[in-house]
């Protein structure tokens, strides 16, 4: 005789194979048909067993019947839910995305830096790319004979051009433009330090993002045009310790909260003391890896306390005011952040490159 448990297992296996209402009807008929159904057959067989066993077996068979009915009902409901709706759409087809372009990676980095420094109380100002020698060199303690002018191989304009038509303070008249001839493409955003200080009294907190130029042939690591962000903070009793504090705050927001900075003494004509700053490599946390050439450190910027000669050139009281300035390459930071291997990619504007950056 087939027992109830065995029949139940057999039913569940059959139910598993059901894919349609039709299948379900076949299974139902097999087990529950009044004539010839397996459950009916089981009940018939129980009638022939000893009387002592009959109540127990009968109970089991009835429970099985109820269980099968419930399972079939549940399955029927599920089949109904799965049935396709007339005129249904194919939801797996691609959606219609609103067009959204990609920001240039240099703008992404620049905007992140601007946001951090704005929050730290710095104004973002822009300056002209076509400059004169006074703002680019002389006022920055680099007179014509200074060897440091060698370090900056400058692109000069053929003849002189009028000054910019528009400045941070507003449009300029043709007269003003004519009185302010420009002779070169600035080699650093530091020239704007001078312009800003000439126009404003301390205290000062500014950052100056912008395009700069050097007479370098383009290759993997050089570009005749690149971008910098200059920073300048001037006030009373501003120290190298303050410079460390500002740059550390920036680095921890820009790169990693655990970032450490290393200040190495260096030389720039317009700062004294001067330093180059390395940041702990975020890829290996300072342990040494390919990105940091096994040193644990990445060079990110140059900085220093504003040279008193610069203050004197803009008419500040170099006794009363001290301050610091720094300059960092935006490409340099984008290269580190995104692992760009060739600086020229920033200027090819190849969509296969640009489209890799987050929207």
């Amino acid at each position: 005789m087939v027992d109830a448990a065995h029949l139940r297992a057999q039913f569940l296996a059959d139910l598993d194979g059901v894919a349609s209402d039709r299948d379900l009807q076949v299974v139902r008929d097999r087990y529950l048909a009044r004539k010839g159904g397996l459950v009916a057959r089981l009940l018939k067989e129980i009638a022939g067993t000893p009387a002592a066993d009959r109540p127990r077996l009968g109970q089991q068979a009835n429970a099985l019947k109820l269980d099968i009915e419930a399972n079939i009902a549940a399955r029927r409901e599920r089949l109904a839910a799965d049935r396709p709706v007339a005129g249904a759409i194919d939801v797996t087809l691609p959606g219609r995305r609103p067009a959204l372009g990609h920001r240039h990676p240099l703008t992404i980095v620049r905007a992140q830096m601007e946001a951090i420094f704005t929050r730290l109380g710095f104004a973002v100002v822009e300056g002209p790319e076509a400059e004169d020698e006074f703002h680019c060199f002389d006022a920055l303690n680099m007179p014509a004979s200074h060897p440091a002018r060698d370090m900056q191989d400058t692109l000069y304009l053929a003849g002189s051009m009028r000054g910019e038509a528009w400045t941070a303070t507003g449009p300029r008249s043709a007269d003003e433009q004519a009185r302010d001839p420009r002779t070169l493409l600035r080699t650093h955003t530091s020239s704007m330090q001078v312009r800003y200080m000439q126009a404003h009294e301390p205290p000062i907190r500014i950052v100056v993002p912008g395009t700069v130029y050097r007479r370098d042939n383009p290759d993997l690591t050089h570009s005749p045009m690149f971008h910098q962000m200059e920073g300048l903070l001037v006030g009373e009793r501003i120290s190298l310790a303050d410079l460390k504090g500002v740059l550390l705050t920036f680095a921890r927001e820009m790169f990693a909260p655990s970032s450490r900075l290393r200040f190495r003494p260096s030389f720039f004509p317009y700062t004294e003391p001067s330093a180059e700053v390395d940041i702990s490599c975020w890829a290996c946390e300072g342990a040494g890896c390919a990105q940091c050439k096994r040193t644990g450190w990445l060079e990110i910027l140059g900085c220093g306390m504003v040279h008193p000669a610069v203050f004197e050139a803009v008419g500040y009281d170099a006794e009363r005011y001290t301050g610091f300035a720094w300059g960092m390459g935006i490409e340099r930071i984008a290269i580190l952040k995104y692992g760009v291997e060739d600086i020229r990619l920033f200027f090819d504007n190849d969509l296969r490159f640009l489209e890799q950056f987050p929207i």
Partner: protein
Amino acid sequence: MRIPLGWLRDFVDVDLDARALADALAMRGFETASVDPLPASPQPPWAKPAADAVIDLEITANRPDCLSILGIARETATMRSLALRLLGTAPGLERKRLTAGESDAVSVTIEAPDLCPRYAAVVAEVTIGPSPAWLAARLEAAGVRSINNIVDITNYVLMEIGQPTHAFDLERLDGRALRIRRARAGETITTLDGMARTLDPEILVIADAERAQAVAGVMGGGHSEVASGTTRVVFESAYFEPTGVRRTSKRLGLMTEASARFERGGDVNATIVALERIAALLESIGAGRVVGPLVDRCPVPRSVVRIRLRRQRLHDLLGVDVEDEEVVRIFEGLGFATSVEWLLEVAPEQAGWDVTIPSFRVDVKREADLVEEIGRHYGYDRLPAVFPAPQAPPAPSDPRVARDEHVRRILLAAGLNEAVTYTFVERGGQEAFGLGDAAEVVGIANPLSGKFDVVRRSLLPGLVEAVAHNRRHERRDIRLFEIGARFSASQGENHAVAIAWTGAGADPHWSRSGRDVDFFDVKGLVEQVAGALGLSVTCEPTKTAPLAAGRAATIVVDGAQVGAIGQIDPAIAAARDLPSGDAIYVAELDLDALWAARLVRERTAPGTTRVASLPRYPSVVRDLSLIVDERLPASTVRGTILAHAPEGLVDVEFFDRYQGEGIPDAHVSLSLRLTFRSPERTLTDADVQQGVDAVLGRLGEVHGAVQR
């Protein structure tokens, strides 16, 4: 500067291995280019056996004193609190005192004291031969080729103490004279590198009675070169003015170990020390001996430089208190003498140190330079990091930054990708864009190549080139924009935004068939950008390069031209190998002019953004189709309607333009949607019909328009 560790140990008992020393020097301002082990080589008798290596350091332009073993030894000793052995105080560092006087073997005259403030010379009898192995090995480790014992001695002293010297064959000097004079115009010399060079009066030379025998501070001449037969030499040791040497070096295109040091600034006192060191070395290696007195011509005596460092200033600039003992230790280690006497006498804010600057530290000119010396050797890593409290409310940012960002966001949201192209372009390439006007183009005086010989007058040539680049790399649908500076002689520098669009008008999607970009896609962007700045634009047809006639317009805001829009002339596209079927639509807008127009609006109509109350009564819409002359611009039709707008007319929109079947030749059907609404009541059909009739009447009268 290559520093062999064994050589450095002559001056200081270095307590670090080469790598650790290099790392420590990097934290004092001397960046390491490389650290390499040195193979075993012959050592001088006084050297203790130790592992040798060479550290190659990058010396910044302000530290010519560190283009020497002694300079780096001084830094090392100060950094590690070790004793520094000076010349004349230890074996291997002998110095032979020479007596100054007049020589009967050679006459020395400075004729250009402005370029040569000090010149010393001494005569020696010599036997030319090879140098001892240890000396040749040291020079080689420092990167200098061994030539013969006399030349090697001058190079040894150059590397050791940083003072360039030169040996002349005395017998080859006409009249046994050394005249330090400016070169004559057209005078020539063949320098030691075998090159014949033409000189001029800006160049200082060392001449004999007749001709130039050396280019001062740069390179000796071949005629008086020390050779195997030389028996008597005169050694020169001088101080040449940095600017003169620098000018000469640039003019001759000749940079040498000597010129690199002189042009950064020599040590006016090292002239004598170097000759005394040479005298000692001649004897110790058996190369000869000095005969006669030392001739010292010092027409311009230098005064001792003393600078005051205030303790308060030191604190203010470093942000930390450095103990007095530490300050004095650092200064003395670096060769600065400090005087503390007045430290006790003066007011506290003036208290500090009087510091005497050694003559080799030409970079230390003011108090801040002294602060740097203390900071460097105290250690920047020991300074605290403090966030400075604001001393005033933050200043406003440049409005151009927010303006450009606003424009950028609009264009990104329209699906354009941001480009950054070079500011300099090719003159010829720009000419093709109709920007060749020689009076306006600003050239680059010293361009890197013909590809970069002018600064751009427009962003379009670069942007179209970026389109071409992408087209060459299998892209058909390209949408780019750039925000940047452009330049012209009369207008100076100005900021613009440019757009270039080719291929699909919208992203392809399975649900619709594609359409290529046209004029009105780009015009819509221009309207959007101007609208975001609170301005509305009008377009006027134009026929100027680089745009294709019939699909080109100037963009006007408040009567002023602010840009152009249209299809790039197919000939220009073809010249960039773009497929002939591709239409590239572009626009360029002067952002500064837009901003100026906005400022004018704000001045004349302040508070332009005022909320109007919402309409209380329904509006009524009527569509009209008119047949007009095809040359009649739609904007004129619109202008006519608005100029005589009937009561209740609140909006006029175009929704169709049709030419073809059913429309007479040279005519066009324009479909307009007129919206009427009254703020006071619900308009009746009769009200609206009256308005429509008025519009129709007016258009018929002015433009001969008839309803279709």
